Structure formats: structure tokens, C-alpha cells
């Protein structure tokens, strides 16, 4: 089963990344996530535990990128 990195979007959700966790180069996956975070400020959360994660590992099957929130 493929792992997914998703984010909330106008369409409900958008898949940012999809990869085979057994064979994927996780450094590359994390590099893309870091790039996405730098652009949007979104940070990864493990959808199995609800915890924010620093790095995505092969154990995570679904990661949600949560965008920054502003008060007002």
C-alpha cells in the first residue's frame, strides 16, 4: 500500500506525495516536504496518532500537512 502526504485544500484534500514506503528514498521525501513547508509554512502530522512529526519515516502511511493559522 502506498503512503501519502496530503493537505487540506479547496477540494477537501490534495495529495502532495504518493510513494511506496518500502522502496522510496525517504531523504528525498523529507526534502520535498521541507521544500513545501518553506513555501507554505505547513507542517507534517501523523494521521495515525495526531502527533506533529519532525521527519517522515517508513512507518507513516498518511501524513497531513497542516497550514499555519492566524488569529484575528
Amino acid at each position, binding site marked *: 500500500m502506498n503512503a501519502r502526504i496530503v*493537505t*487540506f*485544500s*479547496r*477540494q*477537501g*484534500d*490534495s*495529495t*502532495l*506525495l*504518493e*510513494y*511506496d514506503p518500502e*522502496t*522510496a*528514498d525517504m531523504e*528525498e*521525501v523529507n526534502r*520535498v516536504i521541507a*521544500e*513545501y513547508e518553506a*513555501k*507554505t*509554512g*505547513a*507542517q507534517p*502530522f501523523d*494521521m495515525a*496518532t*495526531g*502527533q*506533529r512529526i519532525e521527519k517522515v519515516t517508513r512507518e507513516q502511511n498518511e501524513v*497531513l500537512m*497542516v*497550514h*499555519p*493559522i*492566524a*488569529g*484575528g
Partner: protein
Amino acid sequence: MANRVRALPIPRSPAEFSNDGYLGLVAKDNYHFRGRAIYMMVAGTVYLFVLVAFIVWRFVFEALRHRQLVQGMAAPRRENRFLGRVGVIAIEGGHFDDGSQRAAPFEVTGHAQTYLSRIVALTGATQSGSTFILDVGTTRFYVRDRHVKRLRNVIDPICEYEETCFNVPTGSIPAAEQIASVLLALKNNPALFDPWAAQIGAVKANGQEFGDA
């Protein structure tokens, strides 16, 4: 005595030139052989035409299919990036609204509600009407559409409520997903309420300000 001339009958077909029936048989065989040869030639030509047409069609079809595939890979999303090395597809940037996977409004609502339900379960929040109640330690949050209320110490009877608004400035996402984002963020970092209330701008889940929002 006058010579008597006997007229001989004119033969009507080559076979009748002689009494030899063999000649007739040969003539008939030649006739059948020629007919069959013509038939074979016509059939062969037709077969050849069909074969050539099939080969041409095959090449043209393959070329068209290849072109469609290339166009399909290039066109659907302008932010698509293919990373062959890890077998992943990345969509850069924060704008996904122009993609080909535009969902119908009821699908969007369905997705958003599903995520909200999952995140409510993950964070241990409870729902009361349109408000979601989240406990983090002794702090209780009441989250509803674009508003969050905090009770710092749920066991302190004189503790007062504080309230602020919130929004996700990087994109217009459904209200259910905004609430889901706030629940996840507060569960992991309850101190996020303070920068929201201070209205310093967009704040990342780890508490850092995000300047570009």
C-alpha cells in the same frame, strides 16, 4: 469420272480436331487454372492491402497514443513534478484549485467532514452542537467556525474564558477542515492560542511565525 469431293465438318472446338479426348481435357484444365490464378491474385492483393492498412493503423494509433500520454503528463497540473528516483509525485506550491481533480461541492463537504471526524477522534475532542471541546491538560478549548475560546484551568471555578478568532490564510479550505487544523494544532501545542489572540499573523504548528502568509 468426276472426282467426288467430300466436305469435312469444321471442328467447333480444339478438342474436336482430333478424336483424342486428351486434348479436350488439357484445354479445360488450362481454363480452370487461369481462373484460379486470377482468383488467387485478387485475394492476395486484398490480403496485402488489409495487412498494409493494419500495419499503418497500428503505427498511427501508437503514435497518437504516445502523443496523448505525453500531453497528459505535461498538462493536468501546472505544479506537477515527477521525481522518478523515489517514485513520488509532488505538487508544489499552495494552490491546488486549478487541478483537474476538482471535486463537486458535496464531495468537498464529505471529505472535510470525514477528516474532521477522524481528527476529533484522534485528539479526543467531543462535539456539542457546532462546537468542539478539546481538553489539553487542564486547559479546555471550545472550537467552532472561525472562533476559539479558552478556559485556562478547567478545575479553577473563577477562571475566565478568553476568546479569539482564527483563519487559515494560505488557502480557502472548508470550515470543517479549518476546525480540524485548529484541533490538531492545539492538541500538540496549546500555547498557540496566545499568538492567535495577539494577532501577530500566521503561526506555524510549532509556534513559529510564518512571514509569507
